């Protein structure tokens, strides 16, 4: 649980998203939901549960298997003043939407010199666990961060999920809303009322002095667990959740690194040319020459995600590998350290079970 508030009502990530969408649909007639499986009994891990019953099939639209066209349809509807939320149960399917997102949605406002806007939300869930394999586990936010005109957010907890969703729906741009399947099994304190989480503002989740750790999406959760393990041996990590990747709050991250002198970015994605590369480069540009800094990054292994758990274990950063890397950075002269196996076990996300 990493909600910035410390009391109140507890909500799951999926329920928080659902509540945000329902509140906005209630408030604004132009908001509608479209996507494959948004009206079925599983309701996108519960995140669209009850919406069709409440708002009807004209505002919660089951989509044909036509991701490319539906992205264009959402774009056209947005240009005409509606506020679509296009939902994908797996982020991998966004590859079918790339043409519309990159060539049309992202450019509509610019190309037409401000005469049109494309206010839309594209929800995409990153898969993990139970052998999701090569095509159901990809995190592609880096691809979208690359394109001017697209906003990208990746909230790591139910509080931010609700606030970011409300902000995304009200935003006048296409917003790629990155969710992570494992986050659906986490709860947090979430206010009942409506609120927005501002894009482009990172949050210091745990203050610390020895190193700055930026954790993206689910890796924020894993980094916090690593930070707890490290606290036991007296290493104090400042853990930052960027929340929003485009725009990205480089000022907050830089300020922290200016203090700690060390930066580790843990991305829930591949590292090459990705969000972690961007953050390290941004800090290096800003602090270059000002003081020596030590930088490092972690992410998916540079390979395709295997299905078998025997290999999948090596694919993702874990609290153990993160803690160990941090230890090496903070105490480079000490012997290699790994957290105690029992403690490390406790730190894993245990709630999830299969089959899907």
């Amino acid at each position: 649980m990493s909600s910035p508030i410390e009391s109140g009502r507890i909500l799951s990530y999926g329920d928080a998203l659902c509540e945000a969408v329902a509140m906005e649909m209630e408030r604004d007639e132009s908001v509608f939901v479209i996507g494959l499986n948004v009206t079925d009994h599983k309701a996108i891990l519960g995140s669209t549960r009850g919406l069709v019953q409440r708002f009807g099939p004209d505002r919660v639209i089951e989509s044909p298997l036509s991701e490319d066209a539906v992205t264009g349809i959402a774009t056209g509807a947005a240009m005409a003043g509606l506020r679509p939320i296009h939902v994908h149960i797996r982020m991998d399917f966004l590859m079918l939407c790339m043409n519309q997102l990159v060539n049309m949605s992202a450019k509509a406002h610019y190309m037409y010199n401000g005469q049109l806007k494309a206010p839309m939300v594209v929800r995409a869930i990153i898969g993990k666990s139970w052998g999701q394999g090569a095509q159901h586990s990809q995190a592609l936010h880096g691809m979208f961060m690359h394109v001017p005109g697209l906003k990208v957010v990746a909230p790591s907890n139910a509080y931010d999920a609700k606030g970011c969703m409300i902000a995304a729906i009200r935003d006048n741009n296409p917003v790629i809303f990155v969710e992570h399947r494992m986050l659906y099994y986490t709860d947090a304190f979430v206010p009942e009322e409506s609120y927005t989480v501002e894009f482009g503002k990172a949050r210091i989740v745990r203050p610390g002095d020895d190193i700055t750790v930026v954790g993206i999406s689910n890796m924020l959760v894993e980094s916090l667990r690593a930070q707890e393990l490290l606290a036991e041996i007296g290493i104090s990590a400042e853990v930052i959740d960027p929340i929003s990747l485009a725009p990205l709050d480089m000022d907050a991250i830089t300020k922290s690194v200016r203090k700690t002198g060390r930066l580790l970015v843990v991305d829930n994605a591949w590292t090459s040319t990705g969000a972690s590369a961007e953050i390290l480069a941004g800090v290096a540009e800003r602090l270059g020459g000002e003081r020596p800094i030590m930088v490092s990054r972690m992410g998916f292994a540079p390979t395709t995600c295997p299905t078998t758990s025997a290999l999948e274990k090596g694919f993702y950063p874990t609290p153990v590998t993160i803690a160990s890397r941090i230890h090496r950075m903070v105490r480079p002269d000490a012997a290699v350290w790994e957290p105690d196996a029992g403690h490390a076990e406790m730190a894993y996300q245990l709630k999830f079970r299969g089959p899907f």
Partner: protein
Amino acid sequence: MVEDIYRSLRLIRRTEEEVARLYPSDVIKSPIHLSIGQEFVSVGVIGAVGDDDVVSATYRGHAAYIAKGGDLRRFMAEMYGKANGCAGGKAGSMHLIDMERNVLGMSAVVATTIPVSVGYAMALKREGRGRIVVCFFGDGASEEGVFSESLNFASLHKIPVLFVCENNGYAIHARIEERWANEALSRRVETFGIPARHVADGNVFSIRKAAEELVGYIRAGNGPAFMECAAYRWREHVGPNEDYNDGYRERAALEAWQAKDQMEVVGAMLDQGRRRTIDAGIEEMIADAVQFADAGPWPEPEQLYAHVFAD
């Protein structure tokens, strides 16, 4: 009506000829895809809809823009890349827009505007004022997967959109026989439950009549309709010239189409004195538009970053 059709055909033809004339001087630095010879499709179809209806087109969109009443001065200034262009110089020939006249714009990526038009029309349906979207595209665009996806969605949800395929027989230089397993496009479309007309005679009045019928069908709340209009591209795919020496098509085909040039056919129906007056007015409009473009300022440097994100 005959006079309106003629004026529109003539205005498009002469504007494009002027664009082609100016092009080698490099005042226009934007890839141009001329509609010369196939303007009658846009003119015929757009004549059947109202000012409130919306038109989307392809990178070969000058004809649709002008037929829909898009501002000619701002058109020419956009060609020049000037700040007083219809998109401040950011769009150029391939992305003309005029939302005041409900010209929804164009795209350089083939077929991308098809679903966007469906989405826009979905919003118009919800608005409930009976407005429709006319979505122009080429025969090549019908090969993209998103075309079928969009037809299915539009038919399923009874979206008020008129799909218009301008079939000029070529995608760049590839003949239709090299691309289509079967020429029965209209029959393919009908399998989605969408009424489809094939207007093969190259006649602007046939197109107007078919479009009027289909627009009536759409406005009655029945959902989308489709038409395929045979046409011929007189000039090269991109650029101001003819390309009959390149060996991929014969001049004889051009001559057959020129013999039934709709601008001349319709012009001949008018009183010739009247026709000369219209022609003279059009020359003035074009000269004025060129002057407007010439005199227009360049965008300020900071415009490079304007409108990346909407507020």
